[in-house]
């Protein structure tokens, strides 16, 4: 292939990638998608479904010491919520019609259902006295009874079933008229439960919702407070914060790099060419990653984009060489072996991350390899055709600095392979025993203090207690699912009698049969007859009830299509997950550390804790892969080019810098996690370039000059990341910046003593 045709092919590929990128811009911003997947695909899908049921909700509260003020403002704002076209549904009051519909739907099945308290009593008491006494108490009680009630449900069994429905939500809500209202802490609080129209993780929608909420908050009259709580608010905060940080880091490093280019090359052309080259590399990487994975997680994109810091080395290597060597034909020839070995070494380390099985790491890995390769090709293909720089005066202070770095004491110490091996083993042991990782996924996000306070306030007013722990149950049929759930509920009830399940409401067919047999016996009993007569009720009630068990009228099993009706779905929205991936599923919340027997169909989910455990596993796995990659790299470099000793020297230098940086990161009080291993990976990637470039160069001061420029840009951009509010990003930035400084200082150790060091 000629040079010209190579350029045409490469440009065509880049144009194709441009087109693909802009027609397939598909980011994933959902923080939950960042969490590692569970082993079972069904569990992951169920978690996704359960989370989406929660994530698409927003609770809005308006409070005031004056009920009139709170109510007037609330009604006003509810009307604005309804007319905003931003929300699918706004529930601010009890929907009596819905309860009436529910009552009508369930009434035909009343003898196939039983309330939790009655179920327990049925199992406990052999005689019917308990049920007769409870019905008597209800009949004579404070509350009213009507004719329909007595005719349809003389012993109040169905009344109890309807009453227990409110137990499906864990909220302590009272009412003012029909409106949801709570009086607590001497304030009147009115509530609206809002269902979002779009995903809580769509940045554009987040923006519109938060703007609307802020406008609502500001438009309230004095003495009235506004509170809101929902995933969308946290997601919007995280997105805005990330955008702000990216801008700070981006602008900060861009200004620094611009100054550096002008100072060194006295021209901004090399900067534009380098930035364009890296930009094209990122577009190429993005296109390939979207093509392979369908979507790129924003987190993978942010971490993947850090290859800009690695690939700028290729640009600097060329730029510096071109300021010193005027023969364009020989520049590429001289630096090509270093560039290719540097790229291959970095790519090999990145490649290992695909083996972890964690999709976000695999995305980062593919993105980085493709990006580095594209920038390398850009440098090889475009730079000789475009770059034409003036010669740099060798009295430039950076040359002097290069000289100092090449001769620094650390480089001299590690020039001895035996000393390097000893120090490496020491630092490895210190890392092994001294590192104290924190794999808590909550460190991935910096939650807004104000939003947390609002959440706490709303949860307090609603007496909402959540441990964030729940059980996911799935089965092939609804009947099997209800049976499994019923057993689990019985198990949980021994630890907490307040628990209620979907099967307490709509039981499995075997339970339905059990209840029917019980009711028939009870209505045919003397106890029931006495109850009717003693209390002056109409004797016809007995025959009406018994008639329902006659074969001619016998009721069929409950039609499970009931689960699809809106009124039932509203009641069970937090529990019933429906059909997911071909199985039926439901969720049961767990409180106070309840213990439950798990199986393939019963999985206890504590998402934050589970994900933290998985992160810890991936961290350990990643560390092993990095070690293994280093070993393979030594063998490859040894067999293909350098021999064993040299290969060990080349690989251990960046490895030592990376491990030392990790240890120092911890000593400075930063967070160590899976993402610290990513930092180690980046140090290895860049460090290998540094060492290989120096090894391959016949003129180390030229390379050192390029390395200083490269390290300044890297330290600048990653150092700024350590100002982030997010613990893992802060730590990541610090580790990389420190690691690069260390590798800059120790990489000259690869140069043979007295050969060319210090003679530019």
């Amino acid at each position, binding site marked *: 292939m000629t040079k010209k045709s190579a350029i045409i092919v490469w440009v065509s590929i880049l144009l194709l990638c441009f087109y693909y990128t802009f027609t397939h811009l598909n980011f994933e911003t959902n923080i939950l998608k960042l969490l590692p997947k569970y082993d079972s695909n069904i569990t992951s899908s169920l978690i996704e479904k359960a989370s989406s049921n929660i994530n698409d909700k927003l609770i809005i509260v308006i409070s005031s010491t004056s009920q009139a003020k709170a109510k007037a403002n609330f009604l006003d704002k509810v009307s604005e919520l309804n007319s905003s076209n931003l929300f699918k549904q706004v529930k601010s009051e009890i929907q009596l019609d819905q309860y009436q519909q529910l009552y009508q739907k369930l009434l035909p099945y009343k003898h196939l259902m039983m309330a939790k308290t009655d179920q327990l009593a049925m199992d406990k008491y052999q005689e019917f006295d308990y049920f007769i006494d409870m019905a008597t*108490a209800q*009949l004579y*009680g*404070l*509350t*009213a009874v009507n004719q329909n009630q007595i005719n349809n449900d003389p012993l109040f069994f169905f009344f109890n079933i309807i*009453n227990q429905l409110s137990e499906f939500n864990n909220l302590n809500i*009272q*009412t003012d*008229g029909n409106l949801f209202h709570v009086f607590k802490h001497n304030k009147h609080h009115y509530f609206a439960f809002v269902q979002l129209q779009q995903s809580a993780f769509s940045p554009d929608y987040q923006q519109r919702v938060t703007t609307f909420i802020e406008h609502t908050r500001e438009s309230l009259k004095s003495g009235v407070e506004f509170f809101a709580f929902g995933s969308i608010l946290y997601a919007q905060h995280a997105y805005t914060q990330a955008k702000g940080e990216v801008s700070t880091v981006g602008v900060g490093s861009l200004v620094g790099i611009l100054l550096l280019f002008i100072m060194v090359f006295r021209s901004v052309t090399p900067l534009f060419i380098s930035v364009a080259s890296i930009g094209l590399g990122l577009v190429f990487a993005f296109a390939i990653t979207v093509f392979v994975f369908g979507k790129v997680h924003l987190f993978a994109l942010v971490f993947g984009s850090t290859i800009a810091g690695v690939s700028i080395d290729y640009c600097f290597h060329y730029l510096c060489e071109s300021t010193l060597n005027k023969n364009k034909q020989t520049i590429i020839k001289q630096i090509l072996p270093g560039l290719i070995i540097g790229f291959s070494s970095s790519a090999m380390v990145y490649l290992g991350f695909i083996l972890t099985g964690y999709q976000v790491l695999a995305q980062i890995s593919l993105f980085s390899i493709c990006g580095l390769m594209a920038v390398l090709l850009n440098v090889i293909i475009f730079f000789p055709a475009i770059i034409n720089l003036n010669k740099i005066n060798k009295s430039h202070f950076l040359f002097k600095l290069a000289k100092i770095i090449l001769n620094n004491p650390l480089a001299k110490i590690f020039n001895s392979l035996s000393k390097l091996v000893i120090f490496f083993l020491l630092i490895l042991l210190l890392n092994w025993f001294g590192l104290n990782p924190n794999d808590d996924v909550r460190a991935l996000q910096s939650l807004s203090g104000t939003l947390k306070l609002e959440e706490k306030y709303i949860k307090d007013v609603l007496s909402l207690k959540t441990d964030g722990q729940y059980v996911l149950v799935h089965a092939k049929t609804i009947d099997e699912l209800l049976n499994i759930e019923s057993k689990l509920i019985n198990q949980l009830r021994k630890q907490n009698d307040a628990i209620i399940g979907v099967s307490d409401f709509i039981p499995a067919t075997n339970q339905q049969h059990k209840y029917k047999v019980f009711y028939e016996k009870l209505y045919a009993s003397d106890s029931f007859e006495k109850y009717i007569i003693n209390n002056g009720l109409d004797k016809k009630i007995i025959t009406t009830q018994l008639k329902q068990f006659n074969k001619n009228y016998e009721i069929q099993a409950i039609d499970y299509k009931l689960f699809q009706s809106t009124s039932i779905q509203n009641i069970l929205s937090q529990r019933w997950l429906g059909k997911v991936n071909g199985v039926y599923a439901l969720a049961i919340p767990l409180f106070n550390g309840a213990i439950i027997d798990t199986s393939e169909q019963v999985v206890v989910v504590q998402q934050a804790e589970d994900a933290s455990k998985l992160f810890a596993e991936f961290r350990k796995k990643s560390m092993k892969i990095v070690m293994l990659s280093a070993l393979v790299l030594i063998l490859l470099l040894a067999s293909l080019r350098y021999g064993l000793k040299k290969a060990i020297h080349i690989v251990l230098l960046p490895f030592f810098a990376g491990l030392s940086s990790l240890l120092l990161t911890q000593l400075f009080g930063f967070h160590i996690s899976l993402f610290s291993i990513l930092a180690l990976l980046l140090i290895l990637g860049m460090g290998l370039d540094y060492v290989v470039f120096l090894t391959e160069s016949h003129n180390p001061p030229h390379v050192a000059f390029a390395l200083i420029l490269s390290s300044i840009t890297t330290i600048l951009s990653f150092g700024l990341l350590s100002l982030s509010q997010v613990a893992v990003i802060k730590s990541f930035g610090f580790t990389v910046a420190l690691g690069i400084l260390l590798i800059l200082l120790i990489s000259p150790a690869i140069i043979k003593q007295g050969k060319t060091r210090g003679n530019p």
Partner: protein
Amino acid sequence: MKKSYRIILIVVSLNLITFVHANELKLISLLHERHVNVSHYQADFIQKKHVSYISKPLITTGRLEFALGYGLIWEVTKPLWVKTLITDSGIYKSTKYQKKLRVKDFQIKLIAEIMTELLSANLNKIESQFKITPVAQDNDNTWRIDLTPKKAMLKKALEQVSLKGFFDIDRNNIKGINEIIITDKSGNVTQIKLNNIILYKNELTPEIKSNFN
């Protein structure tokens, strides 16, 4: 505690409303002032439910007790013992079978809402929920206040709540509520007569507090 106020509020409201005879607004506020420091209230009751399709009245006797900050007890002794404790944390029923079984009862909740509105002794609030009609009965030295629901939700359950009591001999003050009459939408009437009313304004004794545990 909101719920606990409901029934005791009847008492307070009755007293309040006595003065409506002369000046509705003034009487309500005066009676509220008089009852605002009541820390403990107790009375015996006889409840008669007249239900149209039940051939005889359903008669219940028992005891009503309220302690400020602790809750309300509605204790039925006949025809069978049932003690209902209403506190901020929920509604609990005790019977010979179970002690303090937590229950959810929409109707009790609804009654609680009404009583809370009355107990607040805020005329605006009472008026927002009910149309207030004072009925002075000069002949037999009794007073009566009729409360007719305004809101749709209340209207679906209640026709009217009447509060009745006696004037002092000089008719300048009241002796307290001694009857509550609730008429539901089906025309069924529940009559609650209160006797042996005892009002405390002192600090609650440990004995009283223990009743609510």
